[in-house]
Structures are given as C-alpha cells and as structure tokens.
C-alpha cells in the first residue's frame, strides 16, 4: 500500500493551483486562509514521510482490516450474465470506506499539533469513522450533522456518542449534509489554531479534494492487484461507484483514470426522479458555481442560491459534487448515471437475497445500474461496495412490503 504520492502526472489529478480542469480552487474567506494554507503547505510533505506511510499502512492493515476483499459475486454475475466483482469496503472497521480517509487525516492532524477535531456527516458513516479515530488517538471530537439526518440515521448517532464524540445538530437550511458542512466550516473559522477539520469527501477547498482522494486511492490500488491475481488482468472493463461528494468513487477510480479502456461509471442519486424536484443528481441538474469553497457543479437557482437536494440516502443527499468529478463529467472521462430511491431499494434487496450482503443505501445506487449497462458475458465489472446496510435497516424495513 502507498498513498499515491508519486502519481500526480495524470491530467485527471489536481494541478499546482488546486484545479481539476476548470474546477476546484479554494474560495475561502480570509478567516480560513491560515488553516487551509497550513494544510496546503504540509499535506504532501507529511504524507510522503516514510514514518507517516508506515503508520498509515499499519493501521489500515491491523485496525481497519485491509486489504478489503475483492469478491466475485457469482449469483449476481449469473443474473446479469457477466462477471461482477464487489470491492468490499463494507467489511472495513466501522462499515464503510470513510475510515480510510479519517485514519489518514487524524495522523496528519497529530503531526500538525492539532488538539480538537471537527467533522460533518450525512449518513453518519463519516461521523462514526471520525469519532472512531479520535477515540483511537485520544482527541476531542465534534461532529456536525443535519437534524433530519440525526433522525434517519439514529444508530450512527448512538455509535458516535458511545465513541465519545459530541454530535451537534445543524438546524439551518435543509438540515442535511450541506448544512452540516456549513456549520463545520463556521466552527473552523471560530477555532482557527487548535482545530483540524476532517472533511469526509473529495469536496471543500484545495487541498481537501486531492488529499482525501489520495487517502482513498488505496481502494483502486488494491483492486488492480487483486484483479490481476484473480483474472490475470489488472484492468476491468467497468468500475462503478456511487457519488455523493465522490470519495469512494475517487478512490475506486484513482489508479484507473489514465487507463482509457476502463469505463468509469459514477452513479448519482436521482431521488424521486431527476426532474421531479426531489433529486440529488448534480451532474444532470447542476451548473458551475462555488459551494463549500470549491468551484464545481452544483444544484442552484438561476440567481445562484443553492438548492436543497433530495435522496433517500443521507450520504448522497448533497447538492454539489467534488471538483474531480465535475472534471470527469465535463471531460467525458466519466460516465454519469443516476438511480432513483426505488431503484436503490430494489438493488439493495437484490444483493441481500442473491449474495447475502446487505449494502448501504448509498452503495445500492451503484448496484442499481448493473441492469442498465448492457454488460457482455466477458466484461469484468468492479462495483465499489462502499458500505454496509446496518445503518439503513429502519429505512429498508419501512419499505419491505
């Protein structure tokens, strides 16, 4: 394992000004400048230190349980008459890919001498992953979470509390992930010296999108190795991942972006339908603008007010998308699909019954597009199974009729 330090030649990686094509940058108020600048100056330096890499790898191995398996899903493959592999991020400690990033960032925060950790969370997976590493390192942890998400992801709220974190409800705006992110950024403005903000996806001002993508790049690094072992070829035909902010997709795509034969498929949440007014399919509904200090595609009104998104899955309920994905979309390198709430629910039941794996609602969006890709019998497809469905049981039960 390494942290993808020497791979920045790709034109799909960030440039020295913090941009992916036309997207990215750091549209921050001056109050945030010292924090973000400190991070920008240090992140690559720290991440390339051998001692840092060693500690990161050790924790991923012994604490998270990596490498996560690449599982050949034979009954699912049979159903779609093709070859489907699941990258089992659901088997990570805390149940999702989010922990790859929080382990990396907590080690970085410690080296920067930070004493207090803040985070935002949607589904609660990133909040749990952050609370977990804070407990591990003995650091104070404050997690901002939209009031609506606190209700629909109750088990994760309880987990965060048991792990010693303080969960602060975000009551402004749509009371979901966007607003939790606003509150976390405001907290950082008010605590500029001792606090590190662990952003949970490839969003926010540069260097966050790049830093988080590098920590998550372990996903595609492992896929390449595991696929080679299992099939004799390192390159699949398709890699599919769901996209909220886009961190599991960024990690799953990272080492494949320059292999043009690999189709990168990003699946957004269509909610009740892309044009229903209740959707979070940013690439379809968004226009370029600035959200959370990053220039990217975002859902907004004609006069630039950010629109409240909708998805049944709290982790995809975000009106923007990381600048990397805006670039993959605009350049055509990524194929952007979307799945409705109902399609995701159906896909979750399908995987449960065919493979005995209950996926997170977020990951179910990626699974839902297997039926639409017209996969051929010899095609090899890797689906990033970003998380497990325990947190979504209540939603699943409600829809089990």
């Amino acid at each position: 394992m390494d942290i993808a330090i020497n791979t920045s030649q790709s034109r799909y990686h960030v440039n020295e000004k913090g941009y992916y094509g036309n997207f990215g940058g750091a549209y921050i108020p001056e109050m945030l400048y010292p924090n973000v600048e400190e991070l920008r100056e240090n992140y690559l330096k720290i991440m390339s230190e051998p001692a840092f890499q060693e500690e990161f790898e050790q924790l991923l191995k012994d604490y998270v349980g990596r490498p996560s398996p690449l599982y050949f899903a034979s009954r699912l493959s049979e159903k779609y008459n093709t070859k489907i592999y699941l990258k089992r991020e659901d088997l990570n400690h805390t149940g999702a890919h989010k922990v790859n990033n929080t382990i990396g960032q907590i080690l970085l925060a410690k080296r920067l001498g930070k004493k207090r950790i803040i985070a935002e969370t949607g589904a609660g997976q990133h909040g749990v992953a952050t609370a977990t590493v804070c407990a591990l390192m003995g650091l104070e942890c404050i997690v901002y979470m939209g009031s609506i998400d606190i209700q629909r992801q109750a088990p994760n709220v309880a987990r965060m509390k048991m792990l010693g974190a303080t969960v602060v409800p975000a009551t402004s705006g749509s009371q979901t992930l966007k607003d939790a992110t606003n509150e976390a950024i405001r907290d950082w403005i008010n605590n500029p010296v001792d606090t590190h903000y662990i952003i949970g996806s490839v969003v926010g001002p540069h260097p966050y999108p790049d830093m988080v993508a590098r920590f998550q790049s372990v996903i595609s690094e492992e896929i390449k190795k595991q696929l080679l072992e299992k099939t004799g070829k390192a390159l699949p035909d398709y890699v599919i991942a769901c996209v909220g902010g886009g961190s599991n997709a960024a990690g799953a795509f990272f080492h494949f972006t320059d292999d043009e034969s690999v189709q990168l498929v990003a699946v957004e949440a269509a909610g009740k339908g892309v044009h229903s007014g209740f959707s979070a399919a940013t690439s379809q509904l968004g226009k370029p603008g600035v959200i959370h200090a990053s220039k990217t595609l975002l859902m907004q009104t004609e006069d630039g007010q950010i629109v409240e998104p909708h998805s049944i899955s709290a982790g995809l309920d975000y009106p923007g998308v990381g600048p990397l994905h805006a670039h993959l979309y605009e350049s055509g390198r990524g194929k952007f699909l979307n799945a409705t709430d109902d399609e995701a629910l159906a896909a979750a039941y399908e995987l449960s019954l065919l493979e005995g794996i209950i996926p997170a609602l977020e990951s179910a969006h990626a699974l839902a597009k297997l039926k639409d890709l017209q996969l051929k019998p010899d095609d090899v497809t890797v689906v990033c199974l970003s998380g497990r469905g325990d947190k979504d049981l209540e939603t699943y039960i409600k829809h089990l009729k």
Partner: protein
Amino acid sequence: MNRIDQLFGNKPKEVLNIYFTAGFPNHGDTLTVLQALQDGGADMAEIGMPFSDPLADGPVIQDSSTRAIKNGMRISVLFEQLKGFREKIHIPVVLMGYINPVLQYGVENFLRSCQEAGVDGLILPDLPMDEYETEYKPLFEKYGQHLIFLVTPETSEARIRKIDSLSRGFVYAVSSSSTTGKDKDMKLQEDYFRKLQDMKLQNPVLVGFGIRDKATFQTACQYSNGAIIGSAFVKAIENSANLQETVQAFVRNIKQ
C-alpha cells in the same frame, strides 16, 4: 471620484459603516433603511446580498438572509430597487455578498449594474485574492468598483501588505477570528489593532465583527478610521414597528 475615497479624503475619524441585508425585514425595506441610515448620521452603508449558504456569518445574518430570500430578494431585484437611489442618498454604498450569486449574474454584468446604480465598492469574502488579481481586477477598475479585502488577527504581515496593495477604498479588519455576530472582547485584540496601526497601510482601516454598541465602536475607533456594525443592527431592526425611528435611534446611540 469614488465616494469612499471622498469620504476618507479628509482623514475622518470614527467613520460608522452599517451593514444590513437587502430585502429585510421586508421586501421593500432596502431603501427605507438606507435613507434612515443616512438621516441618522451613518457615514457609509453596506448592503448584504442574501445567500442561501453564508459561510462566514453567524445565526443573525444567516436568518436575515433566509428571510430576505423568502421575501423574494435577489441581485436583479436589488438593482431594481436601487434604481435612482443616488437622487437621495449621497453616502458611499458598498455591496457585500458571496461569490456564487455574483458568478451566476455574470461578473461583468454585475459590475456594470453596480456602476449604473451608483454603488461604490464591493466586499466579496470568498473571492480569493489570486483569482481577483489574475481574472477580475481590470473589470473592477473599468466599472469604478472598489474591492475591499479582509484581514484577520491570524493574517501574516506579508499578506496584510499584499492585501493592502490590492484593496481599494479601505481594508476591512476583522476584529477576531470568528463568524459574524460573536460578542468578543475588543480589548483582547489590542496587539493586533496596534500592529495594523503601526504598519501604516496605504488604505484606511475599518474594524468589523463584534462591534455592537457605543463602547465597542469607540474602542475600535481608537486604532482605526472607524468601524462596521452588522449583526447588532440587523437584530435591532428585525422586529421594528417603525423602521425610520429604530434605524435613526440606533445610529444616534452610537454616534452621539
């Protein structure tokens, strides 16, 4: 000559600049508040263009923005309201807002509308200095709009110099590292204010964030050319039954 430069041309002390959100408390209140500010003796006004996600603002300005948006306020509506306002208002007026609505309106369109309306300058806290310098500076100059940058207690001296060299009109010294509307003790920031004073910047300095009454205003003025009041004013007018009176009384309380 730009009205901000005119104001500071005579090296005044105790300049009072008051922030309020356009279209708040009610859709049609923008000009009423502006007129009352001038009548009450405010030296400058800062009109907030409401944004759905104001990252640098605390709850008071957030709530006023949400309400203003609900009232139907938006940039194009604000320019409608400002049409002809210069027949009555002579104090400098700056617009404050976040970059996304401005990008959607179109930066050049926006600057042109500012000039046509008689606006003197802009505060766009999330427009980075680099971006301004490389992309937009000539446009701001073409339309006679001063861009006012912020400095904070954490801003390094070298960066303050750079900010001072790019700012026009004045430099906005944020009193403490915080979002708007936090009641912090001005006295704690004396070292920072002194440092700014000793740096002898080319621009005048106005202190903002946490200024809420006569006492905090006067403390800020000891070290600067004046101060900006935002949240405290917004709170004061939020439930006012008589805006004219409330606004003028607020200003008089500070100025007398």
